């Protein structure tokens, strides 16, 4: 099978074409990967074909702060199909100000090897 990808690893956004075959036992044979301009492109395609993953950035509620929320992000990508479950988990959070940039708010989100961290400092009001 042939499939086209737009690599999202960096702003170059290479158009990559992969020729592959999915065996009945679920295993994958990639015959060729073309169009990428660096090694990360090939890794991206392999990942997309087996287990597509994304990082998520959002914000979580803060009480008593100079602003009502604090921006957050995952430190590593999680399976794409879990994005909305992660959003649910973020929505349940309420922090108390002050919040320091870099603070781990949730570790191993949904059991994955990714933490949710604060991406800014929110001082007390």
């Amino acid at each position, binding site marked *: 099978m042939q499939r086209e990808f737009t*690599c999202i690893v*960096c*702003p170059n956004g290479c*158009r990559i074409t992969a020729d592959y075959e999915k065996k009945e036992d679920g295993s994958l044979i990639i015959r060729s990967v073309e169009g990428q301009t660096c090694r990360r492109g090939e890794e991206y395609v392999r990942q997309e074909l087996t287990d597509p993953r994304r990082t998520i950035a959002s914000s979580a509620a803060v009480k008593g702060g100079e602003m009502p*929320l604090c*921006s957050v992000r995952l430190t590593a990508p999680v399976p794409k199909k879990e994005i909305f479950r992660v959003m649910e988990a973020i929505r349940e959070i309420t922090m108390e100000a002050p919040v320091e940039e870099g603070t781990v708010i949730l570790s191993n989100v949904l059991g994955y090897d990714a933490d949710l961290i604060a*991406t*800014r*400092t929110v001082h007390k009001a």
Partner: protein
Amino acid sequence: MKYADVVIVGGGPAGLAAAVRLYDMGIRDILILEREHSLGGILRQCIHDGFGLTRFGVSLSGPEYASRFIGEVEKRQIPYITDTTVIEITRDKLVTAAGEAGLLQVQAKAVILTMGCRERTRGALAIPGTRPAGVMTAGVAQAYINLQNRMIGKEVVILGSGDIGMIMARRLTLEGAHVIAVFEVMPVASGLPRNIEQCLNDYGIPLYLSHTVTDIKGTDRLESVTISQVDDHMQPIPGTEKEYACDTLILSVGLIPENELTLGAGASLDDHTKGALVDEFYQSDIPGIFAAGNVLHVHDLVDFVSMEAEALAEGAAAYVREGSLPECLVSVTAGDNVGHALPQKVSGERDFLLSLRPRRPMQDVRLKVSQGENIILERKMKKVLPAEMIQLKIRKEKLSREGSITVSISQ
């Protein structure tokens, strides 16, 4: 009245990077003036990740990228004043600002313009129809959601395929809104392919090219928009109208450098970039007034903004020390298929960084920089896109002080 060697107008990534580099080169009498309550510029509201890949080798969110530079400014105790808007800059570099403490006047030896850009609005587009609530630019939507925690609507249509609009399409979807589609009047998307992939395709949001909004309905709140297909001259095709019920219309139709102050100082602007005409030192045609970042030309990547501001700082430092910079008489012009090229003037005696944007998407092209008969640089490129700025280092060995330089792209 106060005095300073350098006044920096705008404390976004460009202003901050310029300040830090100036300081490190020994120019310490600096003052940063910022309109908002905190430093950081537009990055404060860009909470998505993808910043800093070039500079730091990691994917940071906007606030984190800004915070690294704010940290460097704080560490050096470079003075800055926030909640203060510069309202006038004269040719003689007298800077007037309005802030909480009233008017502030600073006589500077050099002024650095880093005011960023603003978004094109509905007025600039002349969309017909009523004027209900629920129509706003992507950046305003971003500020509401990411800074003020206010959700803006449930059924959303996005006009324009700029990166900010696509990023907001994803953000709104994650926050539970339904984004009906993104409509783009041009036959090509204006944002980066990776954003089409990760912000639209990932969430099944369709992108319609060669479509635009031809009517807006609603009395208090937006009720619907009418979308039409457009022809090759971007004119709506009668009979293709389709009405979409929605409560929010987001405009992501481009950014314009914010240059009222630049014009007020008497500096000339480039018709294409809408920013100042600059030489290889990023100096405008008024000696001692410099510009970098989005106020000079719209950037897609903040990493390049920081780099540009640092290069500017070297020129500004030399200006403060010497009182003038070498003359730049060789002009750089955009040739075939090139939208703009920057700087517009060079000396022909120093290396410089050439920034350009192609006019249209092209594949398997040859990019050529020449001066008269002399070819300075030639490069084959697999693809070029207007959404992606191209930067090339030009070496002085290949340059002469006579004859203008032309940049062109051919198939």
